[in-house]
């Protein structure tokens, strides 16, 4: 009997859906084993079709994207009820992803910026989206835009996490194969990624580190053989789970942390602060500050993908 599957996107860019398609011809094997009953980006199904299903009828649902609005949350909860196994697919569902950088702002400040302040905005009436409005006599309802972006597991119980922005297609295949073969690890595990940090699969040569200047990729051409961090680039590889195959690193771009932290690391970004500061060269306050001046926007650099899953989660209001 074929499995019943679903894929949904919350607040995300669609990249994860594309990553699923990027498994190329293997999608045929998947289609042989799974009936997709719900996949908004690819197939036309309605929420009501899902609502009409029995609880637990889905064998597997992949949820990508963060929880940014009430619709994301509503469908997350709906799918949680309808599926036996719920997988958080991609960085946004896993740790908040890029959308959760919005947590350093408020809903109000974002609306102000987007609907009135941007240089290209022409909105003399100051129109902003409303949850309820009447257009041509018809009532129109929009989901509520949240103040704080959440990870999937901050609103529903999640069985597995498949990290990455986006996840590497091969890792998706591996994860699906594990599902088909009934070889899933204990609930709550990360699937489709390794147990060590990226440095493990990074092919660059690593030495003892002492950093006395922070550089940016746009200002230098890094030595192709040597560890990027040692060359002064902020590489989040040391605090990021392996599994991506070091794709950025191999292109000479430092890791930005999309695969999230290892287990028991409570806060990926803050951990990086500790690690990086530990290996800075100077000992005098002034000299330390001079090195730190090289880090542009430290908080968002260290928490690029993991703000929603960090300890403090957002800017205080």
């Amino acid at each position, binding site marked *: 009997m074929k499995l019943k599957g679903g894929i949904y996107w919350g607040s995300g860019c669609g990249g994860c859906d594309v990553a699923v398609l990027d498994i190329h011809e293997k999608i045929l094997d998947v289609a042989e084993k799974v009936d997709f009953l719900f996949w908004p980006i690819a197939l036309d199904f309605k929420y009501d079709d899902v609502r009409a299903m029995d609880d637990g009828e889905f064998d597997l649902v992949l949820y990508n994207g963060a929880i940014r609005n009430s619709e994301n949350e509503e469908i997350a909860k709906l799918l949680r009820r309808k599926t036996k196994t719920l997988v958080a697919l991609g960085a946004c569902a896993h740790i908040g992803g890029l959308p959760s950088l919005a947590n350093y702002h408020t809903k109000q400040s974002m609306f102000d910026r987007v609907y009135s302040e941007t240089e290209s905005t022409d909105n003399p009436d100051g129109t902003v989206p409303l949850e309820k409005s009447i257009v041509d006599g018809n009532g129109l309802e929009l989901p509520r835009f949240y103040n704080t972006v959440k990870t999937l597991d901050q609103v529903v119980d999640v069985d597995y996490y498949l990290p990455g922005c986006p996840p590497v297609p091969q890792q998706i295949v591996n994860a699906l194969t594990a599902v088909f073969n009934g070889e899933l690890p204990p609930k709550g595990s990360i699937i489709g990624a390794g147990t060590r940090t990226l440095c493990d699969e990074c092919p660059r040569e690593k030495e003892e580190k002492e950093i006395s200047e922070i550089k940016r990729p746009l200002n230098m051409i890094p030595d192709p053989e040597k560890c990027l961090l040692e060359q002064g680039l902020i590489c989040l590889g040391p605090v990021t789970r392996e599994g991506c195959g070091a794709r950025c690193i191999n292109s000479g771009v430092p890791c930005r942390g999309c695969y999230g932290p290892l287990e028991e690391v409570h806060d990926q970004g*803050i951990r990086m602060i500790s690690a990086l*500061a530990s290996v800075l060269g100077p000992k005098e306050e002034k000299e330390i*500050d001079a090195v730190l001046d090289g*880090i542009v926007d430290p908080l968002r650099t260290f928490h690029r993908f993991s703000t929603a899953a960090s300890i403090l989660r957002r800017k205080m*209001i």
Partner: protein
Amino acid sequence: MTFEPKIVGFLCNWCSYTGADLAGTARIKYAPNIRSVRVMCSGRIEPTFIIKALFEGADGVLIAGCHPGDCHYQEGNYKALRRHRLLQRILPEYGVEPERVRLEWIAASEGERFATIVNEFTEQIRELGPLGVKESLAEAMKDDIDHHEEHIEESGAANEA
């Protein structure tokens, strides 16, 4: 009731914790707001501890280690200093005043100094007022509610029926 700041101290075993003990032996009185966690070296103090303490309700965090050059483990305090300098840069982005996390060098002989710093810091935090990370988070999320929840509940009930 007046606001009584909650202050968490992370003190290195050899200098600062000993200095704090000395304040006790010398019966020097200071504000009761600080509660200390002893670690072997200020180099053990992770920024995560500090963030965690703030999250759990601390209004201020004091990190104290041996004076530069005096570290029992040679250079742990320099690591603490560097981590502190970097942490100071991100706190404002969280809306946390950097003054709430303070780094001091307190020697084993500086009981008086420990007391003075605690008093001064307590007053400084008192002036800044409560931090309230959890309260702020709750406040920020109080309207992040999915109004359809009831609807789903109903439809779920209907399905079961």
